[in-house]
């Protein structure tokens, strides 16, 4: 029996080690990570290599490589080595292990608060002050998502604005002449555009209300209703917000029109968001909310699609915000522990503040150029549909997600709620939202 107990103990220890081996790592992060001042800029003839991590792959990775090559004009002896397909998890683990890249690029703004608060990303203020950078070149909402509690630890590398994509052929067939401007119009148009099969199944959905699904996320919908995640006290207050209630009631109304089961079955038969089988590409969705980057995917894989773009429809109670919408984007930063932070900053400056670089990269991957100057550049070359997003970006009505230290825990909580709400598992909307508040506030309390 003693042998048996020993075996059981070993099995259990192995399990514990397997499930939590990361906890045994050191917490230091290593490297200098000196935040007291800006690292010196490299000499013009300095010879060194900068490692860049990003999540770009394939076409987008090649476009970034082209822009990185232009850094040679400023520093001929600096080699930039770019490793694509590096997600936030790998990035965090490299910083934690004391082996970070010289420059970190993240697709998401959700983890910025955590990186900023923990010091995983260095404060860029000393560099900005030293080089007298005018951060007002960047729209306010974009400045907001690249800072946490006033600390700037990232710069925006292009930006993403969300708007409405609509299929012009399906609109014409349904006798609709213009895209909806209000959520009421969106609902009516969705009904007209939806086609049911003989067995009652959905063949074409006017507008999918499933959430989370494609760009159909709570954070994309929230600006349409003026719903905010956090109150002035920094705590979640969804249950007391009429905007959130309006949003979820609108969603339920839309789902009830289709039937929750039918909509779920329809959703299950659609292709992956970033594949050529995306439902909007295939004409299975007549309208969809998405970022400006979708124009590049359509140009790449659905050339014959006759589509238009427009700002997201707004709730009648929030109509003054029409023309604006959610903005988010890729961020770029200097991780803790890099050997040449001054050189890292020079590359970041080149990528995020040099108009030619921004325009070239924007043209390459169909993202929005993030500074006001680059937005006005005559060298921007995009499809006609892209102009809508340039207008949204310059509208002064941009809304972003709050920077928090809890990653996307609050976004997951709200999207989880939306899933359960439309499935009819939440009998009382306000009580359900109160539970979401408790969940988010519990996560916030850990920081």
């Amino acid at each position, binding site marked *: 029996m003693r042998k*048996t107990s020993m075996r*059981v103990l*070993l*099995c*259990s*220890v*192995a*399990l*514990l*080690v*397997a*499930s*939590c*081996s*990361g*906890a*045994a790592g050191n*917490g230091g*992060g290593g490297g200098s990570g000196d935040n007291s001042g800006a690292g010196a800029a490299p000499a013009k003839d300095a010879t060194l290599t900068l490692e860049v991590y990003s*999540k770009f792959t394939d076409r987008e990775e090649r476009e970034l490589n082209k822009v990185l090559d232009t850094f040679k004009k400023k520093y001929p002896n600096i080699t930039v080595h770019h490793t694509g397909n590096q997600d*936030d998890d790998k990035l*965090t683990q490299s*910083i*934690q292990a004391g082996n970070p890249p010289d420059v970190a690029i*993240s697709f998401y703004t*959700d*983890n910025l608060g*955590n990186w900023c*608060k*923990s*010091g995983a990303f260095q404060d860029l203020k000393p560099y900005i002050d030293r080089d007298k950078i005018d951060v007002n070149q960047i729209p306010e909402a974009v400045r907001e998502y690249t800072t946490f509690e006033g600390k700037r630890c990232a710069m925006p590398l292009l930006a993403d604005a969300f708007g409405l994509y609509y299929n012009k052929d399906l609109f014409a067939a349904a006798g609709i002449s213009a895209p909806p401007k209000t959520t009421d119009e969106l609902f009516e148009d969705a009904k007209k555009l939806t086609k049911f099969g003989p067995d009652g199944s959905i063949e074409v959905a006017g507008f999918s209300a499933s959430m*989370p*699904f*494609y760009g159909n*996320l709570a954070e994309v919908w929230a600006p349409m209703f003026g719903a905010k995640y956090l109150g002035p006290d920094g705590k979640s207050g969804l249950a007391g917000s009429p905007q959130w209630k309006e949003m979820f009631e609108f969603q339920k109304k839309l789902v009830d029109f289709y039937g929750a*089961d039918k909509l*779920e*079955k*329809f*959703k*299950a*038969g*659609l292709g*992956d*968001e970033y594949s050529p089988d995306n439902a909007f590409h295939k004409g299975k969705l007549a309208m969809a909310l998405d970022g400006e980057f979708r124009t590049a995917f359509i140009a790449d894989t659905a050339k014959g699609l006759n589509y238009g773009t427009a700002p997201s429809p707004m709730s009648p109670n929030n109509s003054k915000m029409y023309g604006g919408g959610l903005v988010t984007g890729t961020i770029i930063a200097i991780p*803790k522990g890099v050997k040449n932070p001054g050189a890292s900053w020079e590359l970041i400056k080149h990528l995020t503040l040099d108009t030619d670089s921004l325009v070239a990269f924007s043209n390459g991957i169909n993202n929005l150029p993030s500074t006001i100057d680059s937005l006005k550049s005559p060298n921007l070359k995009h499809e006609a549909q892209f102009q809508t997003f340039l207008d949204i970006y310059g509208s002064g009505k941009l809304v972003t997600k709050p920077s928090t230290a809890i*990653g*996307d*825990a609050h*976004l*997951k909580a709200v999207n*989880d709620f939306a*899933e359960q709400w439309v*499935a009819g*598992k939440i009998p009382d909307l306000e009580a359900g939202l109160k*539970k979401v508040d*408790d*969940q988010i506030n*519990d996560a916030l309390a*850990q920081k």
Partner: protein
Amino acid sequence: MTATLHRPDTDSAAAPARGLGRVRSRRRWVVLGFMAPALLGFLIFFGYPLIATVYFSLTRYDLINPPEWIGFDNYVRMFTSEPLIGTAAYNTLWLVIVLTVCRVIFALGTASVISRLRRGLGLIRTLCYLPALAPPAAATLVFVFVLNPEFGPVNRFLRWLGIDGGLWFNDPAMSKPSLTLLVLWGSGELMIIILAALLDVPQEQYESASLDGAGPARRFWHITLPSISPVLMFGIVNSMIFALQFFTQAVVAGSAAAGTADVAGNTKFIGAPQNSTLTYPVWLYVQGFRYSNMGYAAAMAVLLFVVSFAFTAILVRQLRRASHVEEGA
């Protein structure tokens, strides 16, 4: 007080005893020397992580800054205010029970059928084992396609029969059974192990039992099962640990059901639909590496350790008891 310059006489038998003791002591050091690499490995790779995990579970730790001691707060949070840990624990418990039972029975059933084959044994054995070689992420994506409610071959076939197939991975009530099917498809390793045990059972015992008038069921119950019970016990413990660690398939299936295979960097799609595929290890990973709550994740790991230890101990004891009863009978 007296002193003597002479060594007191000792028993004549003491000298060989002392020599034997010295030999034993030297042998002990030699044994220890040979064991040293293994012991060192055990201490570094088992002892230290175990102690470190318990220590981190009593701290607030973001992986970047030094841990901050907070006592039992992580454990209190786990049992009072954090809502998703209950969901994650339920999902994992479901898998531990259903997946363990189904996997062992399925592997035993398949192995029993194969062991009776007279022709094509090698081919069938290889075909049954092949799915076990498929990478978990790829296998899951294939299964998501096969079980796609709209265009998947399974539902198409069911529609042809006039049956409305389910939503499989898109239905919170069906997602875990769908994952179980996926695991059964890939349980070739266990099937091969059980098959080897089945082929090792002496044929004479079956012949004797047949002569005594025992039917197939009695032969299976009284000969096959006791003979392969150590292998079955391994299968049960192995399946249980597999279920407790269930991660990749759950994440990939959940995100694919939500319409995207891209979950790197965000957690919104993890657990879909409706957190029915959010397993305990997945939530542990999210807490530790996505939300940087490594202290809380360590507390979750300690709880998992305690529960898995208890599960395994009870199981081993029960099976041993059953085995003794069987032997006695």
